[in-house]
């Protein structure tokens, strides 16, 4: 292993600019003649309204005030949902129009009504206050049960009963049959609390329009600039695709929330076209709270049927999933195909049935958030497994071992439409228990108890489907686009390399990891490799970064491009060295004639490719540049076991996490340091969900947790030091053998924490977030 090659913890290239304050985030840019936008937002969860913009339009510094009526006049489309889910009745989901600026009706607090463009951000904000909105409040529904009740207020005329879809997966009859044979049935009602994503960089966008060329430019906080361009061009129709240049520069975290095509970025781009000047908008954190798509928000009833030995016969899950007021970009697939399909967990459960009702409410739209559906699935499975273990008096680890899919059973077809490709679940569990000193837990519990504390230990043996996605599979499930990825390799004449990827880094470190991969595979120095991403004019069309897909899909696309580079290099070397192509061997950056000492380094090959005097042009073209596209045959299936140990103070209800162990199987690992960092961050997100973060609306639909003062983010002293290890069963179907690591922690952690807390408390009567108040109440009841 080279110092910078695959498997080395290379310090990150991008850190130099981030550490010196020279990063290039969207809001850091200021264009000449730039204007600033502020949005007028609904203060009501549901209301019809009329607008008077006269005073605002003549306020100091105001350039223009634009509304939904102006959008309609320009024939600008509405926002779309890119994944069509088909319900039990064979009908497509309901996707009511989601206007870029609300027209006559607002449906959640924060719904954008008008955009005010002014010479300064302050002038825009001051003027936004002067837009007069006369609301006629309509009855609002906040809870999913209320929304589904007979006679509930209707949020959209074309979504009767506020139902987006009623969907199912699995085999109902077989599952009923399994329950009929059960020796024991464990039951739980679970709430998967609504989260607010809160990437630390608020969303931001600068639209620009060049009247001379007709070209639009949008610089924004995006995880997938090409998807933004496609949707803004093809569906919302602001500009044709070749006239729209989208740039996602440095992006300060995404976690899913910067995938989507939102009201604000769209309005900013359109407004720039209308005034022929750059328009910039950067969200206040308060705006992020009401306008960034939220995550999770499920209510589930789950039942697990077991035989006398504790073998899982059947799993039945019934879930309500909140969509919020409109169907966001990928919202529909999250509680269906990214959720129901993962209910097999790591187990051989013989029959599974799951039904999901997706529900509209007068709340901020809900969409994918770190893990997206898979944390919800793992939460359901791992909570009910622990519950069954307790009820049957079987050790929680032992019950899992009895039911694991054995390591020799792969590929393993699940009962819920997937085929797991590889794994060794027992290995990860046993290693995690060893590090966590599971065997000695009883003694630690006693020591805690002597100090008046309640100690608990919780396991979470999670699974996820990553490397999203095999286009054929997702297409058959309703995805509007295939989810392949692109990669380009361009050698310059002097032998250094530009790497173009359609994926996007917003903290994951692609500039380092991808450079390691290319340097290792092509035998060029790490320092000579530059990774280019996030710009639709520079990189080939690509699908972006989410679902832990960048290395598994984007990295594999680079391998395809590099294989083409090597094939061409072989031709060039054969021609130059006067040998036959078949005799050229490539290794460590050198093309050598087999059995001789004649060879050319790839840098020499590149030079020759750009300065050819005598190439036989019919057979050999100049240049050394190739593009590859990779579409995986299957998802990847990272899995592992996390162990959480807690100590609860019964006097105050405070929970302290005293130990965290993560053993994950991500397949092959390119940069272990970066992978560990991804696990730490994911775990923090999951611990946040379990202990601290809970989005709350009051009964009238006002967001109660609308700032960092009210919404508890995990802070340094809420989290423990973590022990992170990996096991490895390489992914068998991508050339790198990698599986993806970005979401694992967020998927594993909530169940681990809650299993530890319920173990400590000896009661199940507690939901996330297990705040001190919730714990204290659970103990007092």
């Amino acid at each position, binding site marked *: 292993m080279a110092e910078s090659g695959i498997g080395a913890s290379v*310090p990150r290239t991008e850190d130099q600019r981030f*550490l*010196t304050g020279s*990063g290039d985030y969207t809001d850091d840019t200021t264009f000449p003649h730039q204007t600033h936008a502020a949005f007028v937002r609904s203060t009501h969860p549901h209301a019809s309204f009329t607008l008077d913009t006269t005073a605002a339009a003549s306020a100091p510094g105001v350039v223009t005030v634009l509304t939904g009526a102006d959008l309609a006049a320009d024939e600008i489309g509405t926002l779309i949902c890119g994944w069509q889910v088909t319900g039990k009745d064979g009908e497509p989901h309901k996707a009511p129009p989601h206007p870029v600026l609300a027209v006559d009706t607002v449906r959640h607090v924060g719904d954008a009504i008008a955009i005010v463009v002014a010479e300064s951000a302050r002038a825009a904000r001051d003027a936004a206050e002067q837009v007069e909105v006369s609301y006629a409040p309509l009855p609002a529904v906040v809870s999913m049960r209320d929304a589904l009740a007979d006679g509930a207020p209707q949020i959209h005329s074309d979504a009767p009963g506020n139902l987006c879809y009623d969907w199912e997966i699995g085999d109902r009859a077989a599952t009923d049959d399994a329950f009929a044979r059960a020796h024991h049935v464990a039951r739980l009602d679970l709430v998967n609390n609504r989260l607010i994503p809160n990437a630390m960089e608020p969303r931001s966008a600068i639209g620009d329009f060049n009247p001379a060329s007709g070209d639009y430019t949008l610089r924004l906080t995006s995880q997938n600039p090409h998807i933004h361009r496609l949707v803004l061009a093809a569906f919302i129709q602001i500009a044709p695709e070749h006239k729209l240049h989208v740039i996602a520069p440095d992006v*300060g975290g995404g976690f899913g929330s910067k995938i989507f095509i939102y009201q604000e970025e769209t309005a900013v781009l359109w407004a720039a076209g209308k005034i022929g000047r750059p328009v910039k908008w950067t969200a206040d*954190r308060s705006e992020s709270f009401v306008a960034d798509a939220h995550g999770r928000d499920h209510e589930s009833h789950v039942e697990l049927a077991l035989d006398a030995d504790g073998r899982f016969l059947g799993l039945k899950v019934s879930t309500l999933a909140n969509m919020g007021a409109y169907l966001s970009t990928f919202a529909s697939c999250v509680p269906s195909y990214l959720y129901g399909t993962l209910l097999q967990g790591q187990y051989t459960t013989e029959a599974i049935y799951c039904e999901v009702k997706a529900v509209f409410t007068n709340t901020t739209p809900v969409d994918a958030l770190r893990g997206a559906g898979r944390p919800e699935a793992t939460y359901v499975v791992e909570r009910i497994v622990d519950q069954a273990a307790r009820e049957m008096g079987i050790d929680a680890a032992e019950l899992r071992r009895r039911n694991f899919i054995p390591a020799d059973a792969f590929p393993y077809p699940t009962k819920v439409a997937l085929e797991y490709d590889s794994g060794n679940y027992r290995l990860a569990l046993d290693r995690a228990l060893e590090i966590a000193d599971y065997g000695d837990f009883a003694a630690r519990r006693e020591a805690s108890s002597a100090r008046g504390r309640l100690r608990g230990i919780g396991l979470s043996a999670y699974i996820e489907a990553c490397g999203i996605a095999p286009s054929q599979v997702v297409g058959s499930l309703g995805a509007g686009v295939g989810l392949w990825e692109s990669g380009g390799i361009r050698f310059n004449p002097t032998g250094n390399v530009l790497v173009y990827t359609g994926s996007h880094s917003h903290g994951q470190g692609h500039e380092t990891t991808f450079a390691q991969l290319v340097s290792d595979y092509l035998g060029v120095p790490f320092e000579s490799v530059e990774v280019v991403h996030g710009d639709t004019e520079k990189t080939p069309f690509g699908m972006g970064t989410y679902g832990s897909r960048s290395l598994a899909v984007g990295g594999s696309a680079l391998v395809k491009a590099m294989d083409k580079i090597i094939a061409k290099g072989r031709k060039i070397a054969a021609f130059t060295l006067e040998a036959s192509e078949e005799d050229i061997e490539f290794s460590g950056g050198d093309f050598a004639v087999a059995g001789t000492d004649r060879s050319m380094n790839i840098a020499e090959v590149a030079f020759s490719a750009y300065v050819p005097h005598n190439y036989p042009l019919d057979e050999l073209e100049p240049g050394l540049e190739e593009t590859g596209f990779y579409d995986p045959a299957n998802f990847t299936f990272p899995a592992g076991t996390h162990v959480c140990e807690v100590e609860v103070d019964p006097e105050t209800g405070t929970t302290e996490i005293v130990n965290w162990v993560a053993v994950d199987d991500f397949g092959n690992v390119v940069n272990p340091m970066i992978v560990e960092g991804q696990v730490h961050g994911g775990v923090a997100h999951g611990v946040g969900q379990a202990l601290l973060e809970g989005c709350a609306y009051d009964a009238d639909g006002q967001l109660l947790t609308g*700032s*960092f003062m009210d919404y508890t983010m995990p802070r340094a*002293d809420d989290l423990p030091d973590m022990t992170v290890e990996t096991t490895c069963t390489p992914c068998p179907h991508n050339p790198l053998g990698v599986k993806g690591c970005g979401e694992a922690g967020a998927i594993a952690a909530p169940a681990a924490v809650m299993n530890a807390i319920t173990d400590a408390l000896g009661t199940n009567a507690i939901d996330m977030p297990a705040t001190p108040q919730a714990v204290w109440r659970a103990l007092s009841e």
Partner: protein
Amino acid sequence: MPVNVSMNVNGRAISEEVEDRTLLVELLRETLRLTGTHVGCDTSQCGACVVHVDGRSVKACTMLATQAHGADVVTIEGLAEGGKLHPMQEAFRDNHGLQCGFCTPGMVMSALDLVARNPDPTGPEVREWLEGNLCRCTGYHNIVKSILAGASTMRGGS
């Protein structure tokens, strides 16, 4: 109402006319184009905006520019000398103490104030000190590790 503010920023004397309600962070980012100092919230909670004013860490979103009149201000841009990273910056890189980098300038500036007050902090002391700095990416594990390593180097340790 426009007012004049003068101060030293990263060792350079500046004097600007600004609107009286201008925040220090707005002066830094918008007027002086020192965009390394970030804004992550509107309630003084996240710490992305931390700079040093007369040697103390301050949330630049919570202070008017006029309040820093006459002060010595150091931002993240003022740490590296002649292209060489400050040992605390170095420690963040070596220990993967950053991912998206958005919280990082505030984290580094805050860490330096901690080390100035407590040159040899423990892990729990670092965690407690970071109460005012939010990070969504790293889970803090490697930030704590970085600060401990940076403090050690600054003490002249290895």
